[in-house]
């Protein structure tokens, strides 16, 4: 790991080779992430007070809200880098890898958002699930991006994968507002079925707000760290794919020459 930053005069020994997707920068970032996560736990479970209505259930929100923020951030990044790939002059595969890595991270954290949200809902509303617009949109979004990842796995060349998934990634931009709007229109016609008549928005005091802020910072750092690593790993996967292909072609040519 240190090889990346240690200046070497001798030819690079195998022992000094870069053995991971990490660099000094990502390690610094990783440490910062762990430290802020520690703060988040301390504030979330310790320093911050219980809410007047929700009582201690509000502590789940310090996990729930930042994961949701991260997931939505990830999907925005996917859409933006899909557009950068598709409309960029060079059709750089780097943008495609960022889009793919970001969508993977987004799906993982959206799953966490849904689960922590259900736990919070059980405590606050008395039910795991409510058909409210935010929840339902999130669930459909989750399924859509699982589909996006499946499209990425369809095969073909890297350029084919990039083009195909960029188009799908951008179609989500049409899809999400329509889904959200339709669910909202649907629910507005019905009685709210909640036990507590709260829609989940809390009047937060200073310390609670600060805890949430710590959470958002921690998860943003985590996102950047994961994104850097994951897109580097995808780059290596692609490279190995190409090398495998080249080797197969060389072999084939050698047979006939």
């Amino acid at each position, binding site marked *: 790991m240190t090889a990346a930053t240690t200046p070497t005069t001798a030819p690079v020994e195998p022992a000094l080779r870069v053995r991971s997707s990490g660099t000094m920068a990502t390690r610094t970032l990783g440490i910062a992430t762990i430290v802020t996560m520690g703060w988040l736990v301390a504030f979330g479970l310790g320093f911050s007070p219980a809410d007047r209505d929700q009582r*201690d259930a509000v502590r789940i929100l310090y996990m729930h809200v930042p994961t949701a923020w991260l997931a939505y951030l990830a999907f925005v990044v996917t859409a933006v880098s899909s557009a950068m790939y598709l409309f960029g002059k060079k059709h750089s595969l780097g943008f495609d890898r960022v889009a793919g890595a970001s969508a993977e991270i987004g799906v993982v954290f959206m799953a966490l958002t849904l689960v922590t949200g259900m*736990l919070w809902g059980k405590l606050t509303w008395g039910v795991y699930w409510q058909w409210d617009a935010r929840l339902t949109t999130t669930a459909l979004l989750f399924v859509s991006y699982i589909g996006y990842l499946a499209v990425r796995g369809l095969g073909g060349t890297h350029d084919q994968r990039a083009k195909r998934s960029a188009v799908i990634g951008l179609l989500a931009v049409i899809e999400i507002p329509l889904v959200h709007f339709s669910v909202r229109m649907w629910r507005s016609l019905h009685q709210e079925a909640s036990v507590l008549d709260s829609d989940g928005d809390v009047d937060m005091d200073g310390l609670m707000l600060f805890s949430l802020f710590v959470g958002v910072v921690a998860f943003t750092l985590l996102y950047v760290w994961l994104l850097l690593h994951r897109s580097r790993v995808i780059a290596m996967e692609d490279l190995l794919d190409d090398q495998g292909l080249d080797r197969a072609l060389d072999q084939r040519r050698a047979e006939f020459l």
Partner: protein
Amino acid sequence: MSGGIVAMQDAGYIFGSYALTFAVIAAFTWRVIRGGRRLANHIDDNDKYWT
């Protein structure tokens, strides 16, 4: 502090959500890092654009 941890209401749900979140983060991170280490050995350093 609003009471000790033991006095916390619905501690199972709350700790459960924290534990689950961190467990999933750890698992995902581990997978990414392991993938990176495994692949890095097969690839020339010059091809690693981040070095």
